[in-house]
């Protein structure tokens, strides 16, 4: 059962990911990205991270991507023009990407032990209780500081938006 689920959603994720990259229309990319996020959420469930899965949907799909779509709709962003800038990116981009993927895969294969397998349900530590405990004890300071960061982001966004308005 596990491999089927994994392969299914991994396939969805990869296909959507490719769509994000190849599609020239922002909306399509955005929706494809939502697809990636959704399938990742399922994978998180398989990895026993229920809360993160839910948070993935709420935060990424429910909030961040909504923002993106808002902006796309607001600016009515159409298909992108074919501009011929950045010769360099097109020159060294592809080989580098291949190299990147190759190296990382190699490292993964080299480092991760063969016997390391993921079995659905064999680890269910990702409960809200555990996560909450970790966040409010071990990671209390980072958490608080993050709240400050978010506040700053809010203020910054509002300030910029005001300027955008008038």
């Amino acid at each position, binding site marked *: 059962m596990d491999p089927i689920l994994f392969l299914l959603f991994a396939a969805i994720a990869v296909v959507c990911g490719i769509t994000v990259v190849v599609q020239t229309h922002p909306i399509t990319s955005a929706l494809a990205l939502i697809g990636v996020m959704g399938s990742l959420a399922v994978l998180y469930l398989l990895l026993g991270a229920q*809360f993160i899965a839910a*948070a993935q949907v709420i935060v990424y799909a429910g*909030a961040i991507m*909504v923002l993106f779509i808002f902006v796309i*709709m607001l600016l009515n962003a159409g298909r992108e023009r074919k501009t011929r800038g950045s010769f360099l990116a097109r020159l060294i981009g592809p080989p580098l990407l291949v190299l990147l993927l190759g190296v990382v895969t190699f490292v993964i294969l080299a480092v991760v032990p063969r016997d390391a397998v993921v079995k659905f349900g064999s680890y269910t530590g990702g*409960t809200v209780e555990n996560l909450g405990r970790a966040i409010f004890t071990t990671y209390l300071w980072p958490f608080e500081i993050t709240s400050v960061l978010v506040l700053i982001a809010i203020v910054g966004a509002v300030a910029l938006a005001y300027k955008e308005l008038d």
Partner: protein
Amino acid sequence: MNFYLLAVIKAAVVVGVLMITLLYLQWVERKVIAHIQVRLGPYNVGAHGLLQPIADTLKLLTKEDLLPPGVNRFYFILAPFLAITLSLVSISVIPFGPEIHIGPVNTWLQLTDLNIGVIFVLAISSLTVYGIVLAGWSSNSKYPLLGALRSSAQMISYELPLGMAVAATLLLSNSLSLRKIVETQSAWYGGFFPAWNLFRMPFPQVFGFVIFVIAVFAETNRVPFDLPEAESELVAGFHTEYSSMKFAGFFMAEYANMVTVTCMATALYLGGWLPLWPASMGSNYAPAAAFALAGGICIYSGLQARKRDRLSLSVFGALFLLVAALFLIPVVQALLVPLFWFLAKTGLLLLLFIWVRGTLPRFRYDQLMRFGWSFMFPVAVANLLITGLLVALVG
């Protein structure tokens, strides 16, 4: 009995019931509003227009499914499906009743119980905005676009107070699984008063409940928050360009959302399937009594109704009495009483929705936003803080 088979059966039952409910919810709404406005409402298609919904459905099915020029075909078609799917998904974690035993089978009256059920529902409801946004955007027409922007803004704004209110109940019930949340409300104060989260010590969630209800009114784009489809200014909002079955899709989605949120409210605040007073005080006979009463009323009003209604009303009366009798059978009682309570509570909430629609005028958009941000949100936060404080101190 096979797990999958059981699951399939349960799913089939739930979806079937839900679909019928959706159909007849519209009928009920039309009737109730009609009577609020001193009209008869649907009357001619079947007795008291009971077949009206089916007629409507057939009409929508047979209408031409036209695709306006210049729309973004893919998303235009995707949108309604997205909407209805998302609105149906979250019903799967709603607990309709306790564990029941039919012969060898022991099962819960619930499709599945996630230990993050509440968050799951919130997550899904945070996605419902996409259906609307896509519909509005892909229609490539200004009213839908405005309607979509409005409704999504509105949904996002009201999701915060919603989440806050829900969080407060979680503090009381100390779990995210809807089933457990209901079970934690099963106590009785003084042996007779229900310990639902609505009345739960140390801090009864009265405010939370009110906030929740108002917020879901906005979430479901219902009156008085139905600006997205404010016909006076936006024609029909995001689904202006839609027709036939796709339009029906949005329609169903809206009602499905209503059902879902009322079920949520029931489970979170009104003790789900738990009775209003303990079984020791004969709450098991409440359904029988209720149906008997309804049957009595029907027959009585049938007796001095006009000729045409005389028959139908008394037939209904008879049916109700039959159901009442059914509820007196111990086995059936054991199975259906919790279900009765759940549906009764949900039904009352749905009636509230309809009643409000028949009563209140529509907000202006800025009023809506100001209300959401500068009243609902602070109150919800305060409610959450007080609850947390009291739970920490007392609990």
